[in-house]
């Protein structure tokens, strides 16, 4: 079926977009907009089941606890973390604050249990800082070396690059499934196979993939998978870490305190089982509940297939028009099909911050800066270590892209008369 990007059946579900038709929001890779059902969900939680989860012995607290457990199971099912009978491995889903915290948990708690001096951790040059700095730190602590997978000029990490970088010294491979700058989807399956063949563990940063495409951690070959709710229509402040049970089980907690213990004596404590072991303190139960509603809207009401079709059509439309502007340089692959919702670019001779400021005057929201990927921009030799980025979601439409293109033309004429 042809996708009609001029029609927009979704906008009405998003109060900010519906109430501000003058805004063209093209920064969903930074954070998504939220549908009304997600905003209502937080309120619904506080109005009908608010109590501190886990500890209360009265039914309201039990309800709050059950609400969280239900979302764990929903997420496990969504990302393919199920046992052989298809039953969700709900207890292997840990709630954190965001992807950064999820990845820090793996780098700080799991990595020291397997890394020793001389080992190698492999990441890619296109990692977001949140899947980069934690590994720098882990390597420094263990005396291990951080090795970088580098893509070709179309953003592809080739088989030979994988073979050259992943070997017997590799202990951990941490890879972003989709790049927040180049928009490419990395060959996670191949990378994971090479890692496992060498006895290494695989950590997948799904911050830019889980909001846009179906994820199956078994097919990916992931040992850990992290993503953030706020990029997937959910509230800010909720992150997810899924891990293989035996790995989570052997990891020490990163934070300690309330709600993460079984028993405490004057000099010692026994940790609660996974996942509570990693969730010290009172969780943001209302936001976890709202995350469940967000993921249900995304995966069931809209559906990943429709999300993919629409976002791909929007990217094609955007890149076709950008290609007609000879003063715009697109960063990343030439083929729109390789850009998963993300198009980075520069306007020749004009600083990205000026581009974003001028576009903002006509209501076009794009990102400009280093996109938390300074090593990538350094390696690519991008001027000023900065670029502009337009990123789409299914709730965008052709009018948003038209406003964007008009904005780029306005930027050019502002500086070049």
């Amino acid at each position, binding site marked *: 079926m042809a996708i009609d990007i001029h029609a927009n059946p979704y906008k009405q579900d998003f109060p900010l977009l519906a109430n501000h038709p003058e805004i063209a929001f093209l920064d969903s890779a930074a954070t998504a907009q939220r549908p009304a059902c997600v905003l209502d969900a937080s309120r619904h939680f506080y109005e009908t089941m608010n109590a501190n989860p886990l500890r209360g012995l009265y039914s309201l607290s039990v309800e709050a606890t059950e609400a969280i457990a239900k979302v764990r199971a929903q997420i496990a099912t969504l990302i393919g973390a199920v046992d052989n009978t298809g039953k969700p491995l709900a207890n292997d889903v840990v709630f954190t604050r965001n992807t950064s915290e999820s990845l820090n948990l793996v780098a700080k708690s799991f990595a020291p249990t397997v890394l020793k001096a001389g080992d190698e951790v492999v990441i890619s040059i296109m990692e977001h800082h949140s899947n980069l700095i934690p590994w720098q730190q882990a390597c420094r602590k263990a005396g291990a070396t951080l090795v970088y997978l580098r893509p070709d000029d179309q953003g592809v990490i080739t088989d030979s690059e994988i073979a050259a970088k992943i070997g017997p010294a590799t202990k951990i491979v941490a890879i972003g499934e989709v790049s927040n700058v180049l928009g490419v989807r990395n060959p996670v399956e191949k990378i994971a196979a090479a890692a496992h063949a060498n006895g290494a563990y695989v950590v997948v940063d799904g911050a830019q993939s889980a909001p846009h495409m179906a994820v199956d951690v078994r097919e990916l070959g992931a040992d850990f998978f992290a993503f953030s709710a706020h990029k997937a229509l959910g509230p800010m402040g909720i992150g997810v870490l899924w891990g293989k049970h035996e790995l989570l089980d052997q990891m020490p907690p990163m934070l300690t305190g309330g709600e993460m213990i079984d028993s405490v004596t004057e000099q010692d404590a026994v940790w609660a089982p996974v996942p509570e072991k990693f969730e010290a303190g009172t969780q943001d139960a209302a936001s976890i509940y709202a995350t469940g509603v967000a993921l249900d809207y995304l995966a069931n009401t809209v559906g990943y297939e429709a999300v993919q079709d629409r976002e791909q059509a929007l990217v094609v439309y955007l890149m076709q028009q950008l290609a007609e502007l000879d003063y715009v340089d697109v960063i990343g692959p030439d083929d729109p099909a390789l850009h998963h919702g993300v198009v980075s670019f520069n306007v020749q001779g*004009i*600083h*990205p*911050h*000026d581009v974003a*400021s*001028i576009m903002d*005057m006509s209501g076009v929201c794009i990102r400009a*800066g*280093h996109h938390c990927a300074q090593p990538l921009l350094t390696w690519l030799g991008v001027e*000023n*270590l*900065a670029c502009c980025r337009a990123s789409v979601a299914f709730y965008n439409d052709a009018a948003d892209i038209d406003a964007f293109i008009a904005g780029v033309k306005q930027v050019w004429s*502002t*500086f070049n008369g």
Partner: protein
Amino acid sequence: MGNLYTSTTFMEHNSHPDYKYEMDSPTLTHDGINPSCGDELTLQLRVENDVIEEASFVGHGCAISQASADIMADLITGETIEEAKRLAGLFLSMIRGDELTEEDYEDLDEAAQLKDISHMPARVKCAELAWRTLDGMLDKQ
């Protein structure tokens, strides 16, 4: 803010800066950076008998940072160190949102048109880069 990018005089300072060059024999040199933007600027002054006889800058950055630097160099040329310090203080306070007196705006001359940047927190650092560099340089004196 809209006025700045459409102001011909302001944009001229970006595209054809009079004071962007490497000085032969500066008496004072000071570097300034905006880590989050990647803007880099080196400010050079030739000071004789407490008077700024020559001011110039080199570096790279967005239009706001470049034009602001050029406007500043123009403004402080021929001024005493003390007056330059006062002007930098006025500018930095204006850009952070303080209301100045009519006289102060007049003293800032062309620089006063950057007033509206105070409504754009993301760009404040760009506008003040040269002035912060001047301030840091003169504080050391």
